[in-house]
């Protein structure tokens, strides 16, 4: 089973994190700028380093994955990106490592062309997979 969550991005200000549908504070202690996405089971706060990514240079994605009540911590966290208008993805396959608690770090991403990219975080508990696609326009 797969759950798709598209587009609902909340840009968070310096004062904290407001998640639609709840009063959670997922990743509220991480630096801004930050984006958040959520599904019925998870809230994910994430940011790129640097922000925004520079065309043709590797960047990192730091994620905080917060399971909602009743949801298990994901057994698998992946990330990838596509350039739909150009019909290709990245030339690099990112690696994701656990960084303690609910934190994860993805390395090896690169947007090698300017334009519209869709970056997708994928969480799985081994049975159900939640996907969080987010559009980014890189100049």
């Amino acid at each position, binding site marked *: 089973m797969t759950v798709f969550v598209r587009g609902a991005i909340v840009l968070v200000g310096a004062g904290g994190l407001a998640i639609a549908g709840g009063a959670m504070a997922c990743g509220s202690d991480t630096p801004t700028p930050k984006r958040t996405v959520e599904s019925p089971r998870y809230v994910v706060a994430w940011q790129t380093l640097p922000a925004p990514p520079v*065309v*043709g240079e*590797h960047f990192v994605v730091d994620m905080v994955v917060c399971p909602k009540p009743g949801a298990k911590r994901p057994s698998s966290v992946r990330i990838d990106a596509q350039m739909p*208008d*150009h*019909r*290709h993805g*990245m*030339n*690099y*396959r*990112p*690696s994701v490592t656990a960084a303690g608690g609910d934190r994860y770090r993805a*390395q*090896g991403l*690169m947007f*090698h*062309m*300017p*334009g519209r990219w869709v970056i997708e975080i994928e969480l799985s508990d081994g049975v159900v997979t939640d996907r969080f696609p987010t559009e980014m326009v890189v*100049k």
Partner: protein
Amino acid sequence: MTFARSLTHRGRVIAFARTLRHTLAIVALAAASTSSYGQPVQFTPDEVARIVSHGPWPPKPVRDPSNRASGNADAIAFGERLFFDTRLSSNGLVSCARCHQPGKFFTDGHARSIGLAPGDRNAPTIVDLSGRRWYGWDGAHDSIWSQSIRPLLDAREMGMTPATVAAVIRREHDFACRYRMAFRKPPPENDQQVLVDVGKALAAFQETLVSERTPFDAFRDALDRGDQAAMANYPEAAKRGLRIFVGRANCSACHVGPAFTNGEFHDVGIGFFASPGKVDPGRHAGIARLKANPYNLLGHFSDDPSRSSATSTRHVTHEHRNFGEFRVPSLRNVAGTAPYMHDGSLKSLRDVVRHYSELNEERLHVHGERILKPLHLDNAEFADLVAFLESLGSGVSAFRLAQRSRPVCDGP
């Protein structure tokens, strides 16, 4: 926090000032420039941002953490000696400079290079190599030193082996002397280590080859600072060509940044056949060679203990779509590096522009760049785009090489 807010406020002020400056620059350009149709050249704010992204130039020098000889003056001098010396070839007649001639911006003017025997690819310039991710038309190498080893060992280029390279370095007094000066020890018994160090000295020299500022750079900087008088010095045809380059031709989608390359690989519709019946797979084979190469940045010959410089090598994907892809070349000094493309099949800059103007979409395989479409340039647009590309050269006909190495080695 206050400091952070202050920085944020200051950043906004700077951003506003830059926007205002660019707006004034646009107005100035509109007033000062006219197109071939008598209409003013008007760069939009987006175009100005794209133009400014192609600088500043030159870049700050960066040392290669995988090469302990990088930036070392003695290693640079040693590398320069090696580069022009024919003793590193099996017949004693071929040097690196045979295919990379300073008088031709370190190319050779041939469609396909000829070392000990004819090759399949065009000799790319080796100017402005520092800081790139991939080297060679297929990116089979992830450092300049690794790339520099390849022609030494290629049977069609210099025809050496690790043992014969090491023997020459140990035997020839001036090489052994310069090796000791560069690496603070005599050439070791390990042939592969000597070979790698020769590659690293060659790399240290090549890192110093940086192209000069160009008329485009002067215009770009003037645009960035809103200097109307300086902007007026840039030819009108080049301005119109620049607008095509960053605009409807979308060349800057791949020719990104100050070096005019994203450092990656694309299929742009050049034929796959190196010769009748012989296919050049390009990047697809390059990635396979990269991963199998003992001299890549993940191997133990890298001097970067953290392997942080190996991020690209560690994460690069190997997919079918890489077939027929070749590296996006820099466009700096492009007018001086004919012929063009990985196989040297396009003789002139006008042929290159014509290729993209009349692009045969049938030649792009199924995974080709979807954004590539024939530009259908009219004669005036064609000339303007060529004028812009010519403005990416410094105006001199040859690369000026500073002679750094002393004729006689007087080291330990």
